[in-house]
């Protein structure tokens, strides 16, 4: 009995100590509270990268807190025009209408900052003899009612070997899925049903690596030695372009889009410092780490 009571007393002292510790810790944290808040909103494609930037920047600059929201490029731009965010992530250019609206409402010109590129590689198994492909051929492979279902339609295929094309895609809510669809199929055509839909960019490459008949699309940064990236031609008769960071940067590689951040007028103060950090080596390293193409 006595022992039990003793235990209880120790336990209750433990609680008191705990509370004291927590409140001290709270005070210490309270002193380092962020002085500035940067609000970022927009593209779902860029939300991962924006989050990674925000976390890393906050680590070295605890006085700045960065809130990141997704919702889509349009949502971010609308929010910027309404003055509800400081930075709008967008995987497309602002339309004329949006620019006019921004001028009318905020009396400043929105400024575009290109912070990196999203370039998709077309991956096949290393044993596949194919080396290059056109956007039209990709459309006939992946598009609804497509006419290309066999590798032998594209390249002389070893006699006796199965030549059925195994299409590997992404789940329909991913930004990569939408980007690839818009480049090869436009707005008038859907993907054909029946592709094997991987759940992540890395999964696509891993699946292609172990599936000799496969074709897949994923960020260029996910390449491994176990897969082969095809050269891509923007159209029949045009030369195919090698999937390199340099070709993505000069926009000659056809499955490329810039990752943009919009601000209202030239950025000032903490927002300006944050953007400069994004352009720095450290910020660009984050771009590469997430499988996108950094600016250099």
């Amino acid at each position, binding site marked *: 009995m006595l022992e039990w009571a003793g235990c209880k007393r120790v336990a209750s002292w433990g609680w008191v100590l705990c509370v004291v510790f927590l409140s001290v810790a709270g005070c210490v944290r309270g002193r380092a509270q962020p002085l500035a808040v940067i609000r970022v909103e927009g593209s*779902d494609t860029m939300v991962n990268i924006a989050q990674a930037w925000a976390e890393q920047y906050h680590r070295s600059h605890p006085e700045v807190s960065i809130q990141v929201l997704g*919702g*889509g490029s349009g949502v971010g731009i609308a929010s910027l025009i309404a003055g509800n965010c400081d930075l709008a992530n967008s995987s497309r250019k602002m339309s004329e209408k949006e620019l006019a609206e921004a001028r009318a409402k905020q009396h400043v010109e929105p400024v575009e900052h290109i912070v990196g590129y999203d370039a998709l590689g077309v991956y096949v198994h290393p044993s596949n003899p194919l080396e290059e492909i056109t956007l039209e051929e990709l459309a006939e492979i992946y598009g609804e009612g497509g006419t290309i279902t066999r590798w032998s339609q594209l390249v002389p295929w070893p006699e006796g070997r*199965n030549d*059925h094309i*195994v299409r590997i895609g992404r*789940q*329909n*809510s*991913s930004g990569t*899925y*939408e980007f690839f*669809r818009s480049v090869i199929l436009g*707005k*008038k*055509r*859907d993907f054909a*049903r*029946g*592709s*094997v*839909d*991987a*759940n992540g960019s890395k999964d696509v490459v891993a*699946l292609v690596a*172990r*599936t000799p*008949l*496969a074709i897949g699309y994923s960020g260029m940064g996910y390449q491994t030695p176990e897969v082969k990236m095809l050269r891509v031609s923007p159209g029949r008769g045009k030369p195919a372009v090698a999937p390199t960071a340099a070709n993505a940067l000069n926009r000659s590689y056809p499955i490329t889009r810039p990752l943009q951040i919009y601000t209202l007028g030239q950025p000032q103060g903490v927002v300006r410092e944050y953007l400069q950090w994004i352009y720095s080596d450290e910020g660009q390293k984050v771009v590469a780490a997430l499988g996108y193409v950094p600016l250099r």
Partner: protein
Amino acid sequence: MPNDNREKASARQIGAGWLGPRLDRLWDAIERPVEWLVRLCGYSAILFVLAIFVFVFLEAAPVLPKLDWYEFFTSIQWRPTSQVRVQYGILALVVGTLSVTGLAMALAVPLGLGAAVYLSEFCSGRLKEVLKVVIELLAAVPSVVWGFIGYMVVGPVLMETTSAEIGVNLLNGGILLALMSVPIIVSVGEDALKAVPDAYREAALALGASRWEMVHRVLFPAARNGLLAAVLLGVGRAIGETMAVLMATGHAIRIPQSLVDPIRTLTATIAAELGEAVERGEHYRVLFVIGLVLFGVTFAVNLLADLVVKGIGGEQGN
């Protein structure tokens, strides 16, 4: 009642040895609240089921009147993010779920019941203990680990040994689900067989039946309710499984033409798309409608199990 008092008395004795005679009254005072607490635990199950159903229903409700139900159940086109024409047809997903569950059961039921019979009738001593522990370990493997095994091990093996064009497919998912439901079927099935009184076995053997005849002419009929429950629990496990099938079945919207075609299940569709669907948007809500469908299917399986078990019980009663 006398039995009840005896239990109380023995409880008191234990209490006395433990905490001293003064706590006798405390013991009595505690009994009532504890009884209520236990009752509350029982009722909470009903509460949780209702709460989950209401939550899923409310999330799905706004889209229910707008949904094209004919297309929903009969179309194989699942295109929630199409820019041409959005279509919500779950037929291929339903077929995917049914085919992988059916295949898993075709593999798991003979294996599981066989193992249960072996454990309860033919095996004894140390080997039995070891086997039981190992089978329980099989049940403890997390489903994401099963998914990895399917992806990294079963897939490449299938590509080597069958005509599979891609390693993640129906057969891969079926094998994994079978391995995941076997431990349930074995442990519930073994309990059911153990519950058959030894007198039945002795009577059968005394009549000159071989051990195999005893198992399938006497034990199976006597234990069929429990064995059926074992199988249905396995079915429930297989239908509801998400992570392993998401990783191992290929996640392709197809009506499978062969055992090695990739497929997609209802659960995997919810898991893959819910995270990135716009919250409270149409796509999001239709995913909850799929949740309702799954809820309905599992409810139907359980109800069926109940009715069948009761029906068999009635027959036996006559």
